[in-house]
Each structure stands twice: as structure tokens, then as C-alpha cells.
């Protein structure tokens, strides 16, 4: 039997035995921080902007996380 996180809202999918899951608010908030950043760059042309330097987003991803108040904090890994 499948054990389900009780925080998840569940909706049986009508056509099969697949369990449809909506991301709960507690998790959604955290993911939303990530997706907000993604939204800023999606589908947009010229994301390089007028800049000819080193792009630190990769280094930044490795060193920082965004907390639920949208504060960027350094993480020790």
C-alpha cells in the first residue's frame, strides 16, 4: 500500500488508478520562490542583457538559497 504525506491534497484520477496530487501550500511557497526566479527569465529574449561579463547565477545557485520571505541566505554545504 502506498503511504501518502497527509498534507497532500489528493484527487483520484478518473481514468486510471493514478493519484493526482496538488502541491500543498506549505511546499508550494518554497517552490514558488524558485519558480518566481524561473518566471523572470522564461521565454524572454535577450536575457544576457547589455553585459559582457561573468554570469554568477550558477555560482549563486550553489551558494545561496532563498527563504520564504524572499531573503537570500548563504548556505554551508
Amino acid at each position, binding site marked *: 500500500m*502506498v503511504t501518502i504525506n497527509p498534507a497532500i491534497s489528493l484527487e483520484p484520477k478518473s481514468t486510471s488508478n493514478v493519484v*493526482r*496530487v496538488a*502541491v500543498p501550500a506549505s*511546499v508550494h511557497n518554497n*517552490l514558488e520562490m524558485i519558480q518566481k526566479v524561473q*518566471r523572470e527569465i522564461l521565454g524572454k529574449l535577450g536575457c544576457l542583457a547589455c553585459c559582457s*561579463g561573468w554570469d554568477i547565477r550558477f555560482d549563486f545557485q550553489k551558494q545561496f538559497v532563498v527563504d520564504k520571505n524572499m531573503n537570500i541566505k548563504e548556505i554551508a554545504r
Partner: protein
Amino acid sequence: MAHLKPAAFSPTPLGVGMVYFPALDFLFEHCSNLLDVIEIEPQTLWFRSPGTTNAHRLDDRAFERVIRLPQHKLIHGVGLPLAASEKFESRQIPPWRQSISRLNPPWISEHLAFMRIPNKGQGKTSHHSGFLLPPLQCQETMDIAIARIAELRKLSAVPVAFEIPPNYLRPQPGEIQDGDFFAQIATAADCGIVLDIHNLWCNERNGRQKMQDVLERLPLDRIWEIHLAGGDNHHGYWLDAHSDLVPQPVMEFCEEWLPRLPNAGALIFEIMPVYIHAKKIPVDRIATQLEKMKFLWHARQKILPITISRSQNPVHSMTWIPEHSHNVNAAAYQKVVRWEQSLGEMVNGRSVSIQNIHFPALVDDPAVPVYRTLIESFRSGTLVEGLPLSYRLLALTLGENVTYSLMKEFWSGCWPEPFAYDEMLGFSTFLHQKINDKKLSVNFLDNVLNYEIAVAQAQMSGQEQFVPFDCEPIALLEALSRWELPASHTPGKFEVQVPAWNMQEP
């Protein structure tokens, strides 16, 4: 000898400003009284329409936010570079015109650079270069640039200025010197110049013509706009990274030359938002710098006697017209194409065979690997920002070095894409193929990749998506969002509902 004719257009002085990014809204609020102008790079506020049309549309919400700002608006293009053999992308023209119509700038500007690499095969489409790259400074490029500027002016219906670009390459044998190259284009095209002093400082520090010498060649009455920025050192090169406050020598040069620019319309500071966070640059220090710029702007009115530079070189008549490029000047056109192909391929890590080396000085130019690493930094930045959970799953499972090697393998086979979404999709497809070929095994990577692509599609299309998972998905996604692997997983058939994102919601 031809004399440089004076500029016909004289911009209204607007004042001090900054380049706009949505992430800098807090700064525009904090420093509103110090800013007279906002410079918008409009392409960064366009979306690609969902579906197969590849058309662009304006991000209405972002434009409305910008329009509400009380400052004057200027437009600085980042998608229609002016020293390129490729024609302007037709799909960019309608949103470009709409952007001008909405923001009503007194003039617009673009880069004297190229960012498409013509394909060597007949009838094949060109590639995105991944970076604004410097042109070969020769008569043929000048002729192309002059024609492009005329074309941009016609379709924009406002005066056009070009920005003097950074150029990390050594001067090529036989190249026209920097100052003469810019001066002759500006005069022959009858256009303005965006004097990016930080770019000139980069060029001088990296071995090109001295700033003073460049300025002495330029028609100073054509300088409508001045850009200031900060940068960083990278393997001995000073980069135009827009990554810091303005260095003191750049500010001092501005102080020295600004009073000599009779038609200066705006003094603009450029900084990338991510660096404000990364370097913890206090907002107050940015405000102090803007105050200094305001001081210089107002002090410039004590104008020094103006000596308008006169080029010693004649301005040649145009030898190339875009509509007839297949006729008399095909050879000249081909020279520029070969430059774009050579540099574009080398900085993207493509091997160039001996018989195809038309510019041997490029082969051992140490700036070529610098450009290559910069392009890779942009591509990796796009991937970790677009697919952060997939990247974390890879890095946590395989390690960061192996993950980066996968990215490099992807880049070696796929040219850069101008859209972040297309880069994400390309890397996702590459990883799926490896999984299918059993050359890559990372638990649930295919699920997480599909989830992040679906989130992107939901955001772009405004339609909800459903993504199958082979395990209970929430624990997995929650752990990755904390930069952790889940302690355990529950297998099963699940489907995550990805809600539509309403474009009108904040």
C-alpha cells in the same frame, strides 16, 4: 579629405538614470529622487508566445510597471545588433515598434556588435552566438553597420545611437583603429553614439586603444548618452560585467570629458541585480554614487571650449546595400560572414579546420577562451535558474563536477539558444536521451525534469499541466527545494497538477 559633418539631432538633456530590471524595483523606489531617466532593454520584457509561431509579445504587466515610473524612458536594444551580416529578425520588429510606441523614447540605441553566426550550409538557419561579439573593424563592417543603422532608424521612427562595445580581442592585423572606426560609422550613418566609458576602460586595460585616444577621434557632438558601470577581473582580463559600482578612474574620466559633450542627453549607470545581492552592495552606496553622477551632470554646464574631433581618414561611400548583397559586394559581405563564423565557432568550442582559418590572429588570442568561458557561464546560469530542482538532483546524486561535465557535453553538441526556455528544453531532451540510452541513471530525474518543463509551460501558456511521477512527488520536490535528497521515497503512480500561472497576478 572628408570632414565630419555635425550631428543634426540634438537631444534634450534628460539627466541621470539607470538600466531597468524588475529585480531592481526596490532600488528605483529608494532612489527615485535621484533618477531622471530609466533605460529599458525591451527584449528582456518580451515573452515568446506559446505555440509554434515563435512570435514575441510584450510582458504587459512589466511594461505597465515601467510606464508608471515617473522618470523619462530610453530604449536600449539587446537583440538587433548593428554590426551583423544577418538581417534583423523579422519577428522582433513588431514588439520592438510596440515597445517604442509604449515608452515613447526621444532616441533609441543598440550595440555595435553581432550575435548570430551565419551557417555555412546553403539554406540553413544561423546560430545564436551566446554573447554580443565584437565586429571585425574593417571597411566592409562599417558599410554593413551604416546600412543597419539606417534600417533601424527607419523602422523605429526615432533617432538611433550605437553603443561602443567592449572588445577583449587583440587588435587584428590591418584593423581600423577603435576611435576611427566608431567616428566614421557615426558620421557616415548620421547617428548618435552611446559612450560606454567602462567599455573603453576595459578595452584599454585589455590592450586596445587608450580611452583618451579614442575620445580624441570621436565626433563629440554625436555623443548623446554616456554609460557607466563596474566590472571584475577574470584571468587577467577586466570584464564589462556590470557587477559593481563605478571604479574611480572611470568616474574621473567621466568628470573630465562630460563637460566637453555638448549634446549629452543622459548619464546612465548599469548594474546586474544579482551582483547587488552577491556582493552585498548597500543601497546607500548606490545612492551616493547616483548623487555623484547628478553632481557631474549639473557641473557639466560649465562647458569647456569644445574641440570637435576631425578624422584624418575619409568617410568612404557605401559599398554594400543589404537588399542587393548578392550583387557587386558579395565578396565584401563574405569577409564579414567569415569573421562572424570564425569567431562565433571558436568561442563556442567548435573546431575550425586549418583551411577554414581566415583570421589566424584569432587562433592564439587568449581572449577566445575567455569568451568561451563567459558563454558557458551564461549557459550554466540559464540552466540552474530554469531547472534548479533537476540541477540539484543531479548535483546531489552525481556531484557537481560530473553534472558540469554533462552540461559541457550538451553545449558541445547544441548551440546556445536566445530563449531560456529553449536552453532548458534542449538540456532536458539531452538528459532524457541519456536516460533512455542507459548512459545516465539518477532516480526520478526524468520526473523532475518533466515537472520543471511543465511549470515553465504553465507559466508561458497560462494553462495547467499534469506531470506523471513514479514516486510520491511532494517529499521529493520539497527535499530538493531545500537542497537535499529525500530520506526515502514511496513508489507508486502519481500525477502532479501544475496550476496555470495568471499573467496578471503579481
